[in-house]
């Protein structure tokens, strides 16, 4: 098995290497990928067409917004999949809500708890900044969402899962995740109702007090927020399922 695997891997590697001979050199500005009209258009026209300075954000959420929607769906799918695989409900139809799981502190470590208490707000504010500032600097819904989700995971790690669930119960995470997707897709559908293609944000200028280009600009922000919702919720959901082996009672 090992030898066979090695041969297969070696074969794949050599195959890939064989092609790399006629690849452009590292950093070659004239490589087809960089010089093709696609890349050029994104660099030069993004600002005119969407008014977003961060081209990555603009391409992500507008030009290839459809792709990104399904990127969020992949996350959403993973969350649902993990629930499907792992989650074990105690009794039928009983997704516990926040009230049913009272906070049961288990001898919280003073230093850890204080640090966490200090850190979490900072992390969350930073997450919000990353989401909101995606137009102008590296960042956006995914990154911000992950950071935001991490804050809950940190809480769960420092205290226990119930403490974190006190904030975001299972039901709430699911609702949040769905809302995120619905915000994103909803904007797209709204565009359809206004008579344009799915996710063609510019038509929104009819209901927003802006011109078409700025309509794109603002929609991108809304869309990023939607993504952030989903990512936050699903990150935490996956974590809590994995750490409690689907019981959602006590974590690590």
């Amino acid at each position: 098995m090992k030898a066979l695997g090695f041969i297969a891997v070696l074969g794949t590697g050599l195959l890939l290497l064989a092609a790399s001979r006629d690849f452009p050199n590292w950093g070659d500005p004239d490589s087809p990928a960089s010089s093709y009209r696609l890349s050029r258009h994104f660099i030069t026209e993004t600002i005119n067409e969407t008014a977003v300075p961060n081209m990555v954000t603009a391409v992500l959420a507008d030009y290839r917004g459809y792709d990104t929607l399904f990127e969020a769906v992949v996350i959403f799918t993973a969350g649902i999949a993990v629930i499907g695989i792992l989650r074990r409900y105690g009794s039928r139809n009983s997704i516990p809500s926040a009230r049913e799981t009272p906070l049961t502190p288990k001898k919280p470590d003073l230093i850890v708890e204080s640090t966490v208490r200090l850190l979490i707000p900072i992390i969350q504010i930073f997450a919000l900044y990353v989401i909101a500032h995606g137009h102008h600097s590296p960042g956006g819904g995914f990154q911000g969402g992950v950071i935001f989700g991490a804050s809950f995971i940190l809480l769960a790690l420092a205290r226990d899962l119930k403490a974190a669930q006190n904030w975001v119960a299972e039901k709430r995470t699911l609702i949040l995740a769905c809302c995120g997707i619905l915000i994103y897709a909803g904007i797209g559908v709204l565009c359809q109702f206004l008579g344009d293609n799915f996710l063609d944000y510019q038509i929104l200028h009819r209901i927003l007090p802006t011109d078409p280009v700025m309509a794109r600009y603002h929609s991108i922000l809304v869309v990023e927020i939607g993504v952030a919702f989903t990512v936050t919720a699903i990150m935490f959901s996956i974590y809590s399922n994995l750490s409690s082996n689907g019981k959602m009672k006590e974590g690590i």
Partner: protein
Amino acid sequence: MIDQAPAIVLLAPFLTAVLVVLVGMKYERACFPLVLLGLSFSVAAAVQTILQVVEAGTLRYYMGGWPPPFGIEFRIDGLNALVALTVSTVALISAVYSKNRVPEENGDKISIYYTLLLLVVTGLLGMVLTGDAFNLYVLLEVSALTSYALIAMGTRRATVAAFKYAIIGTIGASFYLLGVGYLYIKTGSLNMFDIHEVLVAEDLHRSTTVLVAFILITVGVWIKMAFFPLHAWLPNSYTFAPTTTSCLLGPLVTKVMVYVMIRMMLTVFDPVYTFVQLNWGDIVVWMAVIAILVGSLSALAQTDLRRMLAFLIVAEVGYMVGGVWLANTAGLVGAIYHLIADVFMTLCVFLFAGIVFAKTGKREITATHGLFAKMPLTMAGLAVGALSLIGIPPTAGFFSKWYLIQGGMASGHWGYVVALLISSLAMAVLFFRIFEYALFGVKPAEGHGDHHAGDQGKFSEASASILLPLMGTASLVLLIGIFNQSIVSIITDFLVQFNLADPMFR
């Protein structure tokens, strides 16, 4: 007013998936009607799309209003439209089937199951509709992740199979992604049609990179479609998953990957490149021959009903891959027609397996003992599916085999022709074995006894919600066979643009 039908095909199941999660938390009973509604919308939109395609030719839908190659477009031609309609119809049928089965097989995760069902359909439809190579990867992963989860929801054997599937599937998807990357590095584009234009315009067909990209994409897709010898993940996955899952995934996943292969070979790379320049036809067709033989002969060796069907899928994949690589119109028409027909025949037999499991709780072929008297309608449904798989007119399976054999003869691949015939025989043996069990279970052997006329045994037909899908599928198999000319004409209209050399369609 822009026509929204192509988008609705995909969006209906997708949005329903999200709604089902929300609604399912509170009103679990509302899930099923919602699923039905969403999928019906999808089917309706797919019908609308195909009518438009037939009427007005290729349909284009720009996501976000951005023209390609900057944005992502749906470019829907005859091939897309047909496969999309097939996928959504099958999803609808298997959703109906799952109504009563889900509570039994998936326990308390009813809404979760429905969500995953809708998401897998979304992923498959997205792959079919999209005109963007990278977008295809994303949707491939949507459908793959849901498949892993759906399978892992089964018995513990299924979990083991799901893990294997996850590993192998990821390798396949990653190969595909690498292939897209290799194309991107040479062309700088991601839109399938744009890539093709650049490849032709800059005469890139001779570069090693494009060759390697072709190999990567093809192998990646082969892994995903379980083309022999890359089929190791398939049999266990479909055997031990819940029947609701295998009814959904069994027919669809491999076929959609065949679609992707055809799309890549014809649209992205050029037929001239894939068929003439590479000249791999002989090798691949021989591989297909082996796949067909191994698949159908392994099926003969199985005692588990669904495992047997799973091996049939391996053989059927061989049919289609071989048909495509015959490199002539008849072969391609056969492969595409078979793709559509096979979805329904496979669904038919998997539904039968599901019903048998539901009624008897057994997985073995012997569980069909005496079913002819007890469940005549179910057996009739199976009979249609089985006859189609064997290839007996007027069921759909006959016509696809007809074209495939024609293609095989036209290009002189006699091995392929013989393999097709042998596999038909193997299937005949397989299904007649089932019929025998079903026929002889009623009355133990005693020659001619004192049984009076009208001795029918006790009827205990399956409940309507799992029987109706089978009946529906069986009639669809017949309808596809009877109206094969209109389907074939859509396919030939699609193939005309490629100017394939072919003596048969002068």
